[in-house]
């Protein structure tokens, strides 16, 4: 592709959605990835599209728009990624937990989130296999799920159909600038010129920012997911313990884990969620797997007989304030960042694409993007990450 209007680095779900938004806005887009589509964190994602796990905040506003954007995107590109409006059920079994959950859901309701409070009987009606120890839960009908690898792949397919170009297997080695303006990138094979470069490299966004002499404090937060053998329909929604929300917000480096259980179209049940700051340590940690199994069985006792088939891990990209980065670089004109979505990358991807495209093209943004601006980080050039 000669003279792209924009280069997007990263073909995970955020890069793909960004490319699609840009292409739909009429730009000539080139997407570069050092590997295949969804070869980063997207390939290890569960496919969560949640509004339930966010407190009223810019992130919740982003999530609410993004949830609807997923369904619009699904229609736009013709589906093919198992998008399911299955709804989320958040439970709590402690009195403090229940009080906090009530408070949170009331606040969320005030922001346009649908919430349905359920007592023991009510929750048993919609999740018959849930433990009898659950006496209070909140149903969030807007929570949804998709298959993230297929989503990224189908979106990239649409991007290509609409005139975008996608080059896999090329590593960006430098981001080229002139007078503080981006002029393009160079990979190990070629140099590509463009006035706009979007860094959508997720957990590696800090490294890419460094190539331009810029600074993004994005760190990996490891998570494991258990995948069971195909099972009969046991779990009907995404079900999770309310302490999940606290874990996401925690800055603790030690293992944070709370039960998250959901079924899939293919019949396997996915069990999460663990969070640890162990850099990019990739070996299997059996202790974490056991903890996840215990928590899942505590919620759904029948799971004890279901076999674990495989486990995989991914590295969520997070910024110190746990908010994604969506906006123009603090110093360089034309360098944009769309990264750092922690465990909400799938859910927040389409709205991220919309938000950054609006900023790039000078159009109207659906919300104030200031909270996500990369300018919020103390600019320290050449700081090792």
């Amino acid at each position, binding site marked *: 592709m000669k003279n792209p209007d924009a280069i997007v680095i990263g073909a995970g779900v955020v890069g793909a959605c960004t490319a699609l938004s840009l292409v739909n806005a009429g730009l000539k887009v080139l997407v570069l990835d050092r590997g295949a589509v969804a070869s980063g964190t997207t390939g290890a994602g569960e496919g969560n599209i949640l509004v339930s796990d966010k407190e009223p905040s810019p992130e919740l506003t982003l999530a609410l728009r993004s949830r609807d954007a997923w369904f619009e995107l699904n229609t736009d590109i013709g589906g093919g990624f198992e998008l399911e409006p299955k709804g989320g059920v958040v439970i709590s079994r402690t009195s403090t937990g229940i009080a906090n959950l009530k408070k949170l859901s009331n606040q969320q309701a005030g922001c346009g989130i649908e919430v349905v409070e359920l007592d023991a009987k009510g929750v048993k009606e919609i999740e018959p296999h849930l433990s009898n120890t659950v006496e209070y839960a909140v149903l969030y009908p807007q929570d949804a799920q998709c298959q993230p690898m297929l989503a990224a792949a189908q979106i990239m397919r649409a991007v290509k159909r609409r005139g975008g170009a996608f080059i896999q297997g090329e590593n960006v080695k430098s981001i080229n600038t002139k007078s503080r303006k981006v002029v393009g990138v160079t990979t190990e094979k070629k140099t590509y010129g463009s006035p706009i470069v979007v860094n959508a490299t997720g957990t590696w966004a800090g490294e890419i920012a460094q190539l331009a002499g810029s600074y993004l404090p994005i760190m990996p937060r490891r998570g494991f997911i258990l995948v069971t*053998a*195909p099972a*009969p329909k046991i779990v009907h929604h995404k079900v999770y313990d309310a302490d999940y929300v606290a874990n996401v917000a925690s800055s603790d480096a030690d293992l944070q884990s709370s039960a998250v259980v959901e079924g899939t179209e293919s*019949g396997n049940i996915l069990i999460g969620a663990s969070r640890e700051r162990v850099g990019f340590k990739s070996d299997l940690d059996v202790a974490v797997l056991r903890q996840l199994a215990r928590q899942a069985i505590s919620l759904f006792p029948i799971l004890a*007989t279901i076999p674990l088939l495989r486990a995989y891990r991914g590295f969520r990209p997070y910024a110190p304030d746990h908010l994604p980065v969506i906006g123009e670089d603090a110093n360089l004109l034309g360098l944009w960042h769309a990264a750092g979505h922690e465990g909400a990358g799938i859910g927040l991807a389409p709205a991220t694409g919309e938000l950054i495209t609006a900023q790039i093209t000078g159009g109207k943004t659906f919300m104030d993007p200031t909270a996500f601006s990369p300018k919020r980080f103390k600019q320290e050039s050449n700081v090792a990450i």
Partner: protein
Amino acid sequence: MSQSNLEFTFEGQKITAISGQSVGAALLAANQRILRKTRFNENERGLFCGIGVCFDCLVVVDGVGNQRACLIEVKSGMRVQRQVGSDA
């Protein structure tokens, strides 16, 4: 050579086995070749690798699914059924 015969049921039918035989082997000896139906296409499957590697020979034994017929030794009175999809 002692041959202690055991009896078990498959889909409610009485099947005889020799002690030490696997469920899969005994069913094959009784000309029962279809052990399950797959979960997406509902296709018939039977014994394939015979040594517990392929997981094709899944049957439900005494109410528990995902049992490899080629590995499970027949016990007197066992109730074996075809596995339909992933349902136990």
